[in-house]
């Protein structure tokens, strides 16, 4: 007990003497100096011994950045460091950019703490090694129990006769950090592409085309891939890739070849599959983009329409030609997340 008292006293005096500026430097130094040289400071650098690398980390790779934010256990000094570091509310804290714990320091601390009891009870000193450490990389963005509001625009990528543009929105709720359920809706506009005119002019044929008016779906999202990348070797951005599967409905409408004969509309059962990426900019905002395949059996205008045959919309619909369609669309938009922030429930 006595040894603890004099150490506490010494630490108190040191903190009082050095003041908060030392705390500031500590935050940056620890971020810069990984892996720590610790006791070897000042000594001639020796070849490093190979250490088992943590899962998911490149051996020896160190990420830098200026977004460090104090860990809760860093207390007031850490708070000051965070404030001086310029961390803005809502910015994403990057793993590996903050003041990281040092294995050597932790080992030394553990040894020091162990010294007293060891002497008293003759317990063998336990050495820590990298193998004793379970590395769980903390994600910089949490989604669990959060809601994503995702307005987007999209365009057809696989139809050479008609191109659809849409504005839409998704409303997703994350049951876990990798699984979400949501609803989506889209409103479409269309334009004919060059072959629509060429076929009429060159081959003397009027293409049979349907346009889409709206669609809606119930979707499930799964996030199997996440990662981070550096832009121009300066800024680190985290991102993830996710798959979507859903089912919904689409309304298609016949584009009449001859305006004398009315077209008709179809409501089509529409399963969909897709893959997308999400780039994390703030705790409340991401940029999303991806590709979605909306699949349905569309009903097209019958080839023969005369005054005697398929003249009305009902007759034409009755004798319509069905065809399986993959409406592949590229989507891009900005997601807003609610609540706008989140709390980590585990330590770093």
């Amino acid at each position: 007990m006595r040894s603890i008292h004099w150490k506490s006293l010494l630490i108190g005096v040191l903190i009082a003497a050095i003041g908060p500026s030392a705390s500031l430097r500590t935050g940056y130094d620890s971020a810069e100096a990984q892996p720590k040289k610790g006791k070897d400071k000042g000594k001639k650098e020796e070849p490093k011994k190979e250490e088992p690398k943590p899962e998911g980390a490149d051996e020896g790779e160190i990420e830098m950045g200026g977004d460090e934010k104090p860990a809760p256990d860093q207390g007031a000094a850490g708070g000051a460091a965070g404030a001086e570091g310029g961390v803005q509310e809502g910015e994403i804290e990057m793993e590996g950019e903050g003041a990281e714990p040092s294995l050597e320091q932790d080992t030394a601390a553990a040894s020091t703490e162990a010294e007293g009891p060891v002497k008293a009870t003759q317990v063998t000193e336990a050495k820590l090694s990298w193998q004793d450490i379970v590395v769980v990389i903390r994600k910089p963005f949490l989604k669990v129990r959060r809601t994503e509001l995702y307005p987007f625009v999209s365009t057809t990528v696989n139809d050479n006769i008609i191109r659809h543009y849409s504005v839409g929105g998704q409303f997703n709720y994350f049951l876990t950090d990798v699984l979400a359920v949501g609803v989506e809706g889209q409103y479409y506009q269309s334009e004919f592409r060059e072959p629509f005119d060429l076929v009429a002019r060159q081959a003397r044929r009027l293409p049979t085309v349907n346009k889409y008016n709206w669609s809606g779906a119930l979707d499930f999202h799964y996030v199997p891939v996440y990662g981070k990348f550096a832009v121009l070797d300066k800024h680190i951005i985290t991102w993830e890739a996710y798959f979507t599967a859903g089912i919904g409905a689409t309304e298609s409408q016949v584009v009449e070849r001859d305006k004398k004969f009315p077209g008709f509309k179809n409501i089509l059962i529409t399963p969909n599959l897709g893959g997308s990426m999400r780039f994390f900019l703030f705790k409340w905002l991401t940029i999303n983009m991806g590709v979605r395949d909306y699949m349905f059996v569309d009903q097209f205008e019958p080839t023969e329409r005369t005054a005697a045959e398929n003249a009305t919309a009902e007759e034409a619909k009755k004798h319509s030609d069905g065809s399986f369609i993959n409406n592949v669309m590229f989507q891009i938009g900005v997601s807003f997340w609610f609540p706008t922030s989140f709390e980590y429930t585990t330590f770093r």
Partner: protein
Amino acid sequence: MSRMRLFPRWVLFVSVLGVVASLFAAGDARAERRKNPLDDQPAVRHRLLLVKNRFELTPLFESTINADFRHILGGGAKLEYHLSDMLSLGAIGVYSTSLDTGLVEKIVKTLETDPDDMTREPSQGEFNAHLNDMPVHGAAFVSLTPWYGKLAAFSAAFVNFDFYFQAGVSYAQLKSSCGANLCDDANPDPASPMFDNNPNNDPPLNDGTKIGLYLGGGIHVFMNEFIALDLTVRDYAFADNPSGADFNADLAVTDDDSRFLHHLFLGAGISVMLPPGAKRTP
């Protein structure tokens, strides 16, 4: 009653100057303290340089995206030298074959089987013979790799990747084969007195060598230090008339029917980086 001066004027002036200077100095010191020492540092230290000063040889497969009349599918290779971890020079060459799109299949089966000059529609043979193929195409390019990173898939596979963008010059060898039995109009020029107002029997004029613009963007997903999956979207843009038919409605097929078109391809390949060992940044 005159006031007594406690200090001479110059002492006051020097004191004020001193206070102002010390305030500036304090401000500078504070700004210096506030400056994040990591600001000028690279984002990642001890980074594995997976491309710098290495050759990249990529056997690849390519296919058109959303072609109007004929899908072009082919195999080839890309050779690239990475001058730095961001900049590289390279060339790509692809040999291809072609497949009719669904649009062609739908149109052809409704056309007349034999040429009939009394109708304005082409016969099945005329329509098909005017379409062109692209047996060879390629590009020489400069590539920029501004993004690199790593990803975790299913919390099990951890791999490096980078995104790149390319720009350069494209090359394409186009081929169409309309024989004399179908394209027998010797005077397709609208100004000719023998002009027949029928574009269906005109030569398609959509073959030969084309030079144009090349743009691309893709991703390397590194399996290890020297093998990567290479996925790319490429745009070979050059003057073309894929249908080989009358585009400008002058009832003749001429060079004026060609226009600057984008030929979008999706490519997939396996990149081998040489030498096989990668260095690290400090």
